[in-house]
């Protein structure tokens, strides 16, 4: 992501320091992670110390300071999914793709995250891949779903 694009995003928010989180969210959603160079640019433009930006980037769950895989796998571990067996789904997916929540595999194929409730409780346990919801997952079915992603 180049500086011009970052400048555009900042200008859209009138360059106000209070929009810092909104600016970071936009960079995250376009670039899918927050590279250090980009954060330095934000710091310079908004006149906010880099330490404060990093404080925010590490505090909120939406931000990632490392590159993400091509496919983002989200396993819902909200209460409704939990009582319907989300832990067993998560365990199986971890075994299958060999990474833990918060990690990305070496080929940058999958990133795995747990999320607290996607609000589709009728479909629990839910696994979401790249925004597509796969409902009523049983551990054995996860392999069939995952093999569709390259």
């Amino acid at each position, binding site marked *: 992501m180049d500086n011009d694009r970052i400048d555009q995003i900042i200008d859209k928010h009138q360059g*106000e*320091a*209070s*929009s*810092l*989180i*909104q600016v*970071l*969210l936009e960079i995250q959603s376009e670039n899918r992670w927050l590279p250090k160079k980009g954060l330095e640019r934000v710091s310079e433009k908004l006149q906010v110390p880099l330490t*404060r930006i990093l*404080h*925010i980037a590490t*505090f*909120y*769950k*939406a*931000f990632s300071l490392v590159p993400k895989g091509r496919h983002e796998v989200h396993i819902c*571990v*909200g*209460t*409704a999914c*939990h*009582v*319907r*067996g989300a*832990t*067993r789904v998560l*365990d*199986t997916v971890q*075994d*299958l793709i060999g990474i833990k929540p918060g990690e990305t595999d070496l080929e940058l194929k999958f990133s795995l995250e747990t*999320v*607290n*409730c*996607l*609000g*589709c*409780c*009728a*479909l*629990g346990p*839910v696994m979401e891949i790249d925004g597509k*919801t796969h*409902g009523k997952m*049983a*551990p*054995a079915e996860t*392999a069939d779903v995952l093999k569709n992603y390259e």
Partner: protein
Amino acid sequence: MSRINSPAELEEFRKGILSKRDPNKPCITLCSGSACNATGSGEVAARIEEELQKQGLSDEVDIRRTGCHGFCERGPIIINRPEEISYFQIKPEDVPEIISETIKEKKVVERLLYTDPDTNEKIIHESEIPFYKHQKRLVFGSNGNIDPKSIDDYLAIDGYSALAKALSGMTSEDVLEEVKKSNLRGRGGGGFPAGRKWEGTRNAPDEIKYVIVNADEGDPGAYMDRSLLEGNPHSILEGLTIGAYAIGSHEGYIYVRQEYPLAVENVNIAIKTAEEYGFLGKNILGSGFDFKVIVHQGAGAFVCGESTALMTALEGRVGEPRPKYIRSNIKGLWDKPSVLNNVETWANVPLIINKGADWFAQFGTEGSKGTKIFSLVGKITNTGLVEVPMGTPLKDIIFKIGGGIPNGRKFKAVQTGGPSGGCIPEELLDLEVGFDELTKAGSMMGSGGMIVMDEDTCMVDVARYFIDFLTDESCGKCVPCREGLRQMHKILTNITKGKGREGDIELLEELAETAKEAALCALGKSAPNPFLSTLRYFRDEYEAHINEKRCPALSCKELISFYIDPAKCKACMICLRKCPAEAIDGGKNKIHIVDQEKCTKCGTCFEVCPPRFGAVTKISGEPVPSPIPEEERIIRKRKKK
């Protein structure tokens, strides 16, 4: 679109909309909330359009994509108006039949109707289905009738009439008095009387004041605020504007989770159109009152649902709570007096102004007025959003509306109030829901999550789950919450792993007491609730885990083993093929055995074993029987004579 400049112009405009609408024109309404979208509502909508075109009906039939109807278990939902013929779990391939039969011929397609599981009777109208029949949908009811992206739809159901009434016929004191008289209490968790909160801000000397919508709905298993914001965003804007008028604020914020993209989209559209029509902006409806609304997306932090943390996040900083020596309605966002209420609270305001405080107060109990939307989830037959008057017994919500527990299992507990709430056991099912009633039972109202648990749910694991959630979400500012919860989590995890020791319960109680007394904000103070309430009602389960290393619900992975009963196994190969760990040994006509070393305890074998065999069982607290000898494992088929 030119701005509407007075209440009279609004009524003229409304008449214009209604006169263009023929109430007898067929209209297909399709639920397009997040849950239905996940089950394929988008594909169904595309198919409807295509099919209408094919059958040459595009001009004769309206399609309306509405917000959430609440009955998420049976989505996607189609209601054919004006007859209100309701179809559930619609797939794209059902569409041609619906159009040729129901739309053209006015005939009912029996197989798509809801079947009452008790009487086996087919039900045609949505309002007669038990799930809806026992509800009182004052706030949530419009969701199924309007397209949330269309302001005209909202105007057609009398939208913005409360705002017009407040701005033209009432002083700001009148509005405040009406809300105070209604005794509306905050629907976000604390249950603080909204009118009193508003009054504090109104009386604060500062000129600049803010109003804020808390749409950072973080409780797992609760999604009523999202559904309101997605399905009827104008009702929240209207309530917020009325509130701003009452307290003298000219700037409002909506803090919404970025995990709710559809809600963000719909509320932004609503703000834009409301500005065009003149319900927001300068000189609203010619009253001289100015008000603008800004949307701020949350970046994913549960603690930001706490009022002071939310305000710090709005300022563009890390969302940490601050002590409330001075309440935020006196000194809040940017140190200015700020009223913060949650989505559902704001959505109640137009109703109170339109119909009056007395009308509102007829619903509910002494201490809790009006209705409440609950999100009924977990081990329940009818998962969905349910709106009932305060004071409705839990039993009615779970059994009459929710349809009880699926798969013939037995009810164990219902967890209310989100992670900081508590579990209510079967013997208290007669409890009437209300702010004070739930607190007395050791739980709380919270934002209205209601998670039903059956006999397969381990209560120690539930406590561990919530403490784990809160440990993760603790902002780390104060010690009792940051360190205390971590220790509680460690002990609870040990107990569920069979490493519990005598004295653990007492130690947990001590830690819980400290966090309750000494934590800074509501998150920390209420964090021990899930532990305390499960201990209060399910102490025996804690003791079984610690003393006998047994999980009575057969749920804790480390304490159970899967075992195939050789007397029942028919060597059908189903579990053997499905096992993701390849831990089942056997073959055709060779009785299967679980290799306990390889088994990951995912439970797949237990789920796939045909019920007529029921050979796979769970064992806890006792050793697994040793495998039968090899020669006895062969099942000999009877020779044909």
